[in-house]
């Protein structure tokens, strides 16, 4: 009995230590922005607004968050639209070599927005005059995310019964009407998943915007964060902590919103 109790106690202590390991940085993120003269330590905040004032004095901080929103929303929209159409076609039309095509795309996609393709991508953007353009960046990010998105979407499409669509077809619906009226509502959770995944990807992407956007006014938060240094060349903990909080809040909000609104799937109408 005592051995059992001791073992239990040991187990929970271990869990607590492990959790602390992950919780402390989050705690720091929550407290540092409200603490005067923050350090790497987690301290009881004194709820100063000084840090926020200092951050808002930075000419690029707020603008960069807006840029991040633009890039993320634009990319997510394009990824969702194209991935849905492509995945629907790939799911319903029998193409020779379809699976090989999908797997090749998936394999190559990790290269497109990866380090290996930096130089050619930069060259391409220059040639197409898409350098230092947010649209160009959105297109390139979309290209990088699409194969994986198509792959995921196709899975959702495959799992929706065909008779829904055949039913609509017999009533005379065109393929686009079928997609709009029937397929999209049925795969809504899939669309939400892809959108969230795309936003999170773009939000955290540092390399591509750093490479392709030279105008500070256009750079997203991930890049601006990299510039938050003191005159002495030290990381500016005051600004970093505060900016870090603002940077993470939108992503958290998005997750909450999406899981509340789309975190379910329609059922019924098909008798199994």
């Amino acid at each position: 009995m005592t051995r059992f109790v001791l073992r239990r106690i040991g187990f929970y202590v271990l869990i607590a230590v492990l959790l602390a390991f992950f919780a402390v940085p989050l705690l720091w993120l929550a407290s540092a922005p409200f603490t005067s003269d923050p350090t790497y330590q987690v301290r009881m905040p004194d709820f100063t607004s000084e840090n926020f004032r200092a951050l808002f004095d930075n000419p690029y901080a707020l603008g960069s968050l807006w840029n991040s929103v633009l890039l993320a929303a634009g990319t997510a929209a394009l990824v969702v639209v194209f991935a849905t159409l492509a995945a629907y076609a790939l799911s319903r039309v029998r193409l020779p070599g379809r699976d090989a095509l999908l797997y090749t795309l998936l394999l190559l996609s990790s290269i497109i927005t990866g380090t290996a393709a930096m130089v050619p991508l930069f060259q391409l953007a220059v040639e197409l005059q898409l350098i230092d353009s947010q649209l160009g960046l959105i297109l390139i990010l979309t290209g990088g995310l699409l194969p994986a998105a198509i792959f995921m979407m196709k899975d959702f499409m495959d799992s929706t019964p065909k008779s829904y669509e055949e039913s609509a077809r017999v009533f005379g619906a065109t393929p686009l009407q079928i997609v709009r009226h029937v397929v999209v509502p049925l795969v809504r959770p899939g669309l939400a998943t892809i959108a969230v995944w795309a936003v999170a990807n773009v939000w955290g992407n540092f390399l591509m915007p750093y490479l392709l956007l030279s105008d500070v006014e256009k750079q997203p938060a991930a890049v601006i964060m990299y510039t938050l240094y003191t005159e002495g060349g030290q990381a500016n903990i005051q600004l970093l902590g505060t900016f870090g909080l603002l940077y993470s809040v939108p992503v958290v909000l998005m997750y909450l919103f999406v899981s509340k609104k789309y975190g379910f799937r329609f059922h019924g109408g098909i008798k199994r």
Partner: protein
Amino acid sequence: MSAIELRGLTKVYPGGVKALDSLDLVIPDGEFFALLGPSGCGKTTLLRTIAGLETATGGAVVIGDRDVTGVQPGARDIAMVFQDYALFPHMNVTDNIAYPLRIKKVARATRQQKAAEVGARLGLEQLMERRPGQLSGGQQQRVALARVMATQAQAFLFDEPLSNLDARLRLEARTFLKKLQHELGVTTVFVTHDQAEALAMADRMAVMESGHIRQIGTPAEVFQRPANTFVAGFIGSTPMNLLDGVVRGDTVDVADCKVAVPESAEGLLRDGEKIVYGVRPEYNVYSAESADGSLGGTVSIVENLGATYLVTLDVNGVPVQAIVPEGREPELGDEGFAVPRRDRALIYRDGELVSA
């Protein structure tokens, strides 16, 4: 409303499987027509080819006076109820019923009103705001029916309309469907693997086997005079007795007994010919005493069918079944005799019915 005509309709799937082999069939205007057969016989393929969901490899589909062989399903002016009903789960009952009208760009108010009308006719008034997931199987089926009624199509196609209902509801739905089809008078083709369903509902039916139609006729014709041994074995809730026999003048030797040549085959048989003698258990008159032209043996099984009993006699090693009314059923091991009715027994030569 209009007739459906199939001319030499052929469907070969990629890979060489011949699902339909040059079928000819005419379904007159307003008829309730059943496609019956075991699974894999091509009946669902045939229905889907009429709908246009499968493209015919050869032959023609004519609906009304229009050849629709190459026409898209939506332009054929037909409506279909799928086996799983395929109601749209994200739309409520009203929107589901009104969906065909939405495709035809009918104004919102008009189509809502139409949906309400059709829904009321099928007793769905209280359910119009519900989603399919909140409906029972029978209610879902009625919504699916309401949806095809709202199309006002020339012909309806039902794929296994009753297979997803439980046994009790199935009987109710059978009566309901037959009445509804009769009232609407729309040419309707339905697919089923259940011979009782086909017999009960259809005006006429086609019995299919591996891509061929083996017999077309009214339920009575198909039941009483199956055109071949396949149909004979498939139709009827108890399968027909199909016994090997040899013709001897006016009698047939079956399982070492002599039975009379049936009326339908009189004068059409050669002496000494090998045939199959067929008689339904329902047309086998059972008695405990020996009679002329009877099949005598020991009772080996007695099965209770409710108001009747299915008695299996062991006639010199050949099982012969007869239907016996309740109260007169024999005991196991009794000696019993079955006298086939001469006006109902049939003779099959090489699997085909012998008749004038």
